[in-house]
């Protein structure tokens, strides 16, 4: 049962769970922001997995930084990265070198979990093999359906596409392949008539 209540939504909206230790040859854990707390809880359940764990932690865009605590957890490998984009090549290499039996855990924002899942899928893991637990910010990655650009950290609805400048409303329709929600032009029929931006994804 997810700790965060996202409310009722459509069938393509991702649903997250709770991290739990699974048998495996090694464990790749990627967390951001408040997700550090889920990692602490995971290791508390199964301290023996720490030795085979590769933990990657990214401070949250909202300022939450649990790096010190993460470094002290005792994972076999630990890395602190400033952003997902910066650590992506490392993650892709670990997945590429991995064997079946590698367990993947992602916890923190939807944006982080979505990108880990996307990269795990590209490496050949079934999408539901990645364990997820939502913690912290509800900010979204949103793809503008018009210019295809993805805007990170979207907290308001509507918002302005950071690539092409169109006013977009945010749908719950989600693509695992792109690891993004869909944004659609809100004032196409009545240009300029844009409702005030509401902070829906804090």
């Amino acid at each position, binding site marked *: 049962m997810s700790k965060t209540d996202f409310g009722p939504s459509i069938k393509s909206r991702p649903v997250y769970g709770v991290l739990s230790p699974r*048998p*495996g*040859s090694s464990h790749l854990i990627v967390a951001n922001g408040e997700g550090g707390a889920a990692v602490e809880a995971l290791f508390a359940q199964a301290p023996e997995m720490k030795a085979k764990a590769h933990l990657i932690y990214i401070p949250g865009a909202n300022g939450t930084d649990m790096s010190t605590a993460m470094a002290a957890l005792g994972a076999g490998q630990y890395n602190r990265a400033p952003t997902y984009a910066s650590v992506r090549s490392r993650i892709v290499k670990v997945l590429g070198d991995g*064997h*079946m*039996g590698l367990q993947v855990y992602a916890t923190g924002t939807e944006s982080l979990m979505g990108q880990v899942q996307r990269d795990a899928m590209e490496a*050949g893991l079934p*999408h539901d093999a990645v364990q997820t637990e939502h913690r912290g910010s509800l900010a979204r990655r949103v793809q503008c359906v018009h210019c295809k650009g993805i805007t990170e950290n979207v907290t308001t609805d509507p918002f302005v596409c950071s690539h092409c400048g169109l006013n977009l409303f945010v749908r719950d329709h989600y693509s695992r392949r792109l690891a993004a929600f869909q944004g659609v032009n809100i004032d196409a029929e009545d240009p300029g008539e844009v409702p005030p931006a509401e902070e829906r994804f804090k």
Partner: protein
Amino acid sequence: MSVGAAKIPVVVTEVVEVNSLIKRFRFVREDGGQMPGFSGGAHTVVEMDDAGTRRLNPYSLMSDPGDRSGYEISVRRDDTGRGGSAYMHREVRPGMKMLISPPVNLFGLDLRAKKHLMIAGGIGITPFLAQMAQLDAMGARFELHYAARDRELGAYMPELSARYGDRVHRYYDAEGQAIDLTTLLAGQPLGTHLYVCGPKGMIGWVLKTAADLGWPAGAVHSEEFLAPPVGVPFTVELAVSGKTITVGAAQSLLEAIEAAGVDAPYLCRGGACGQCETHVIACEGEIEHNDHWLTDDQKAGCRHIMPCVSRFKGAKLVLER
């Protein structure tokens, strides 16, 4: 009746004794046309008229999917079964006309796989023969681990090694050879898909080992050739058609329903696909669930039955047919 397209009238052109337990049969279309193409892992349902008893048995297509001139199946003789395989071995001759279904695939390849790892036991080799031919033609990466009781019963082993070389690993129980499953599974690169087909016990062992090693369920695929077991005769009321039928010891419930002239949907005839699922209106006794389709709750609940493989013991069974 089968959900879907019409049966294919065929002529048997070859019957080959592969070993003491296995015969291979080749079918070509009676009208001389091409067979439908198929995907590796598919099976066909062969219709038999065994002295008035109509049987329909599914058999994996073992021939190359790229060869549309005919289909080939291999049948292992089971002397303790209902008699379908015995019929095939005893009665089917070259020149005989038969009816087979268009191919149906419940054991398909996941073509996204970076590598396909196949584990076969005994007659379970048959779907892999078609799949390897398909993968080889596509240039995809695969590996086969094939166990049989002994060299005599290791059908097609030499041919497979000759054709696919190092990708084929052979194990003979009688010579004390066994698959080192843990090592094998632990060493596979991320993105490998695992396929297993063979006796129930082997499938169970492979699935459990894979799960214990942390393989995700979505990367593990299995097919068990479930034949309807022989049992004790029982009586069934068909509420919708208003008939009461007796299911013979060597007859499946589905076959008995069909013999009574009542149409019932089916597809795989092996308890795996869900098509023949039938609602139970009344049940005084115990349903012997032999299928892989119903959930544990459904099996405990006595409101559902899969007539292709399951049986009943008790005073009364009423079905919605």
